[in-house]
Each structure stands twice: as structure tokens, then as C-alpha cells.
């Protein structure tokens, strides 16, 4: 049990360190100029996948240009608050401090999780269509 708790703490710190490292690279570098890994799906097919534009979106967000971040990848920007909440909730459960609230794992309602595949696939389809250019990076 102790080993599991230590491993969980290491996982929380590892994920946090990876996120901070990625944020630093994306803030200091510029994915618009190249030198960043390209989406292999886009490279092969020429189509936008649901994740395409995430690096540029995070770069814009870290430079406080929220409008451009949404332009690059609106789905990633909508997912970001939930991902941040999931991480904070994970922290409060793994690093249980006496008296501090322990946030539950985000328990999304069934209708929301059920709709998610359709939302992600729909987003991928629409951003590749002529009228969906506004969602394309």
C-alpha cells in the first residue's frame, strides 16, 4: 500500500513536470515556425485531425492570445479547463492534506461522456469541410 502511494505521488509529480516542461518549450519556442513535431496524421493525409493545432493553440494561450488559441484548436481549449481540474483533483487525492478538501475525480454525467465521441468526430469532420474553415487551424 505504501509502495502504491509513493508511486502515485511520483506519477503526479512526473505528469506535472512534463506539463510544465512542455509549457516552457511551447512558450519559448514558436510552433508556427517549424522545428516542432508535426501531426503524422496531417502529414500523411493532409486532413486536420481533432488534435491538429494544439501546439500552436497552447503557444497562443501562453502568450495570452485567447482568440487565436481558439482559432487554432477550439476543442483543445474547451477540454483544457476539465484537464486542469482533473489534475488538481488528482493532486488533492494523492497529496491528502489534513483538513484540505479532496476533490472527486471529475464524474461527468453519462449524457456528456456519451456525446463526447460524436463531438470529437464531428469536430474533426467539420473542420475539414469548406464551411467549417473557422474551426480549422
Amino acid at each position: 500500500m505504501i509502495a502504491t502511494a509513493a508511486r502515485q505521488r511520483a506519477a503526479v509529480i512526473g505528469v506535472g513536470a512534463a506539463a510544465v516542461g512542455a509549457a516552457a518549450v511551447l512558450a519559448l519556442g514558436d510552433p508556427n515556425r517549424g522545428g516542432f513535431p508535426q501531426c503524422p496524421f496531417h502529414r500523411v493525409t493532409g486532413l486536420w485531425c481533432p488534435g491538429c493545432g494544439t501546439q500552436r493553440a497552447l503557444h497562443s494561450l501562453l502568450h495570452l492570445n485567447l482568440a487565436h488559441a481558439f482559432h487554432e484548436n477550439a476543442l483543445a481549449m474547451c477540454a483544457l479547463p476539465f484537464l486542469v481540474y482533473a489534475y488538481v483533483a488528482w493532486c488533492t487525492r494523492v497529496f491528502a492534506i489534513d483538513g484540505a478538501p479532496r476533490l472527486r475525480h471529475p464524474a461527468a454525467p453519462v449524457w456528456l461522456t456519451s456525446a463526447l465521441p460524436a463531438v470529437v468526430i464531428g469536430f474533426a469532420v467539420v473542420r475539414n469541410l469548406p464551411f467549417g474553415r473557422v474551426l480549422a487551424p
Partner: protein
Amino acid sequence: MPPGYGYGGGYGGPPAGPPPSNYLVPAILTTLFCCLPFGIVSIVFAAQVNSKWAMGDVRGAQDSSQKAKTWATVSAIAGGVILILYIIVFALAASHSNTSNP
């Protein structure tokens, strides 16, 4: 506390106890950052976990949970391999252009 099998796997309503992890967060992360269709497969299975659980389908929810985990892992590994290949190709190209310059 053991997971609830209180309804004997019947399809009447949600069983007692917490549902299996739906691995929704890794599924979303691999979809956004690994840029491969595997992440979407993981989201599809992740979405099935809680709806199957709500219907009382314990085995189905556990099955979808495992598949969501598997596909998120596949997507993460594929993304990692592509990233490493990209770095190798980039490093080779950089060293080649350095040595071939007159």
C-alpha cells in the same frame, strides 16, 4: 471495499459501488497530443463505461474500461515512437547539413 456486484449483473440500474475508471482523461490527452485515430477509439470506449454501468452492465463496463486503457496506451506509445523518430530524423538532418556545408 469490493466493487459492487449487488444486482448480480442484471440490467435494472446502476450497481452499488463506484464504476470502473473510464480513462477519459488519458483518452482526451492522447487524442489531442498523439494525433492518431487510436485516441478517438479510446474516447469511444471511455464513453461506454459509465453508460453501461448506469444500465447495470458490470461486465460490459469493465470490458470497455480495459479497452479504453489499452487504446490510450497504444496511442501514447505510437505518439512517443513518432516523436522519437522525428527527433532522430531532425538530428540527422541537422548534422548532415552541418557536415555537408563547405
